[in-house]
């Protein structure tokens, strides 16, 4: 008979799982963290000596899947609707890294909080036809202390008071902002002249030495890369704290294929090692933090039957507005993004009018990142071959002379947008893969067009000669015919909503504390819980929410034992 070696099994070593590991081990519980990908981050035996593997190597990260998942070994599938048949595409579908550290490794670490309104979209703004807009079962005030903890743990650099639309905060940022990038200074000045409110983007990148890790040295390989000098704190800081206690085991290359359930309680998991061998691990409880596509996949593989599992998947509707300027902006020097503005999140009069004109009650945009491309292989592939190639690479209209914005537009939840198990595609282990069925709501298209036009005027103000607008997924119907199914596939790497939390098991997967309705000793600890996605990146919020929920979970576990 197998015995329990750990109090808690944690599935996933990204920001959510690492945060839970930290909280549980600090509270004296033992955990084992399962990570399906490789470990390039931290030696469990020597958590203070971080591994020295990450590098400034465009090819390795953007072409050769170094952080995983390899889309051939672990594909996902995609279709827009059931009318497309079983699937349109097999391969990469909005993949986050499968590696120790998860999405924290590749992110450039923009870590904004959500606003007060984001937790009560339904009561503030009202319903929208075809969308399952809902309030969160908690408020910003409930989460604020945990946001503060999360910012201190990860180490967020920012400037309190710089963003007039920011929610209230109980403490300053733990670090001042890092050096502003030139392109961001140019776009911020232009935005300011037109009445917008740019501010230093809050980032989980060290501006000064912090938590035993060095300040960022501006190498430019930030978004999509692991940091060679570990100046990014998410989720290194939490994993390291957990491992230092001696109560955490980190098991990489270990894929959890099923949660074992008996009489409404999880008893452990079944997992597959790197050689394809299946094992069981027993525990008192199970935390699922596999990301908003892998979490519903695991719940479905485990035989849970709640009708809401996998539904309401949200990405961000990304609107890119970029202008070619007659001067160089060197986006390859610095930490990817140093400026942002939040004006487009506010439902103001022009946004209300645009909504009414389109027959919608309201529209919301999102966080606007001021950005400039940084990488040369990606750039080279945009240009034609022949004598033009080198002239264009030297003039660099699509990289070194390109600046502008990416807006992370709020994406409304829809019950028909969902993750389920693909009926026949299997991963290399023989396990059914996650299939995404997803189509944007008209809200996203109207909001993108409205705010895209406003962003275009800011780019124009910078002195740009030519301006390009693109969205992900592709927004306009006229363009659809010209592009493959791939362009309908969101590339945001912000995914949420597939195990939403709520107060009613008929409309949610988890209760208001993130516990599965069908098994109360299973805690979900990632962005799957989000009832709405807001216009902000999900990471800081999922970390804060994990802290809140796991502390409640610990309290409840103690009650059970008494």
């Amino acid at each position, binding site marked *: 008979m197998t015995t329990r070696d750990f109090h808690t099994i944690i599935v996933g070593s990204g920001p959510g799982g690492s945060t839970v590991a930290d909280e549980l081990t600090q509270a004296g519980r033992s955990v084992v963290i399962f990570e399906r990908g490789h470990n390039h981050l931290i030696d469990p035996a020597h958590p203070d000596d971080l591994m020295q*593997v990450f590098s400034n190597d465009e090819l390795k990260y953007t072409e050769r899947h170094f952080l995983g998942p390899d889309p051939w070994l672990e594909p996902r599938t995609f279709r827009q609707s059931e009318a497309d048949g079983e699937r349109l595409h097999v391969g990469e579908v909005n993949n986050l890294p499968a590696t120790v550290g998860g999405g924290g490794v590749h992110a450039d670490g923009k870590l904004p909080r959500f606003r007060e309104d984001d937790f009560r979209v339904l009561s503030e703004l009202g319903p929208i036809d075809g969308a399952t807009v809902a309030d969160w079962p908690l408020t910003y005030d409930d989460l604020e202390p945990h946001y503060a903890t999360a910012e201190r743990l990860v180490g967020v650099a920012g400037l309190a008071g710089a963003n007039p639309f920011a929610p209230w905060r109980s403490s300053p940022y733990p670090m001042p902002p890092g050096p502003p990038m030139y392109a961001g200074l140019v776009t911020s000045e232009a935005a300011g002249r037109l009445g917008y409110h740019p501010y230093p983007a809050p980032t989980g990148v060290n501006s000064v030495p912090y938590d035993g890790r060095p300040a960022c040295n501006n190498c430019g390989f930030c978004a999509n890369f692991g940091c*060679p000098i570990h100046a990014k704190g998410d989720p290194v800081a939490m994993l390291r704290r957990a491992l230092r206690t001696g109560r955490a085991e980190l098991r990489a290359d270990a894929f959890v294929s099923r949660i074992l359930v008996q009489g409404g309680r999880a008893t452990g998991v079944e997992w597959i090692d790197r050689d394809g061998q299946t094992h069981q691990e027993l525990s008192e409880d199970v935390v699922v933090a596999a990301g908003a596509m892998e979490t519903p996949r695991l719940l479905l593989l485990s035989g849970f039957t709640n009708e809401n599992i996998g539904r309401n998947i949200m990405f961000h509707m990304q609107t890119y507005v970029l202008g070619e300027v007659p001067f160089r902006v060197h986006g390859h020097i610095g930490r990817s993004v140093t400026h942002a503005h939040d004006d487009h999140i506010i439902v103001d009069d022009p946004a209300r009018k645009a909504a009414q004109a389109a027959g919608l009650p309201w529209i919301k945009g999102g966080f606007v990142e001021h950005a400039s491309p940084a990488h040369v292989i990606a750039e080279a592939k945009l240009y034609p071959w022949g004598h033009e190639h080198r002239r264009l690479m030297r003039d660099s209209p699509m990289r070194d002379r390109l600046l502008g914005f990416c807006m992370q537009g709020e994406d409304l939840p829809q019950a028909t947008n969902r993750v389920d198990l693909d009926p026949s595609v299997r991963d290399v282990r023989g396990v059914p893969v996650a299939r995404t069925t997803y189509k944007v709501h008209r809200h996203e298209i109207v909001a993108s067009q409205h705010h895209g036009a406003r962003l275009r005027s800011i780019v124009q103000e910078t002195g740009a000669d030519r301006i390009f607008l693109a969205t992900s997924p592709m927004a306009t119907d006229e363009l659809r015919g010209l592009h493959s199914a791939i362009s309908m596939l969101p590339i945001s790497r912000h995914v949420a909503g597939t195990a939403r939390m709520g107060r009613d098991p008929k409309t949610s997967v988890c209760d208001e504390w993130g516990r599965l309705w069908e098994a109360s000793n299973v805690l979900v600890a990632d962005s799957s819980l989000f009832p709405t996605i807001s216009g902000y990146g999900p990471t800081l919020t999922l970390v804060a929410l994990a802290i809140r929920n796991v502390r409640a979970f610990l309290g409840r576990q103690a009650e059970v034992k008494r």
Partner: protein
Amino acid sequence: MTSAEDGRDATRFLSLAQRRILAAACARLVPADEYGPGADEAGAVDYIEGLLGAFLVYPPRIWAGGPFSGRFGGEASFASFHRLTAVDELAWRTRIEGSKGIAERERLGPVAGLQERYTEGLAALGDDFPALPPEEQDHRLRSAGSFLDLLYQHVCEGLYAAPEYGGNRDLAGWRSIGYLGDVQPRGYPDEEVSGA
């Protein structure tokens, strides 16, 4: 034929004749100009050979090492390629060698490997390709369909990826466009981040 006779050696996949066609094609895709050598001279052929023959060396030339190249300080480690797990090897062998009817490589259907695509693509360009006038070479390239797309993608990688992958010879790709490449552990000073 022995390997010496057909121009192959133990670390190369392509024959000498194939390399000549490939070099001529690379020279058309990114020709030499006043700012730098053509893609052939800049190492694109070696880069492509490095990929097609990744498993002719150990560890295979898939993921270069880290954290530093040594070009801006630190101990040079890019040239120490990562060992692959059995599963990673399955993925990369399938991509490079093709599925060849092997069941575990055909889970998602048959895969035409890069080696096969290059063998066929270079054959279609023709043994006479290197000797053709430039206009005729360009015409054949434009008729090469998806092989042209594949080749151009690899030429871009061969010019602008880290030189440890076999291309970007003497940093010719980066130098020709005024790009420094990997700069860790030095990084860039704050003034260069914020200044014009």
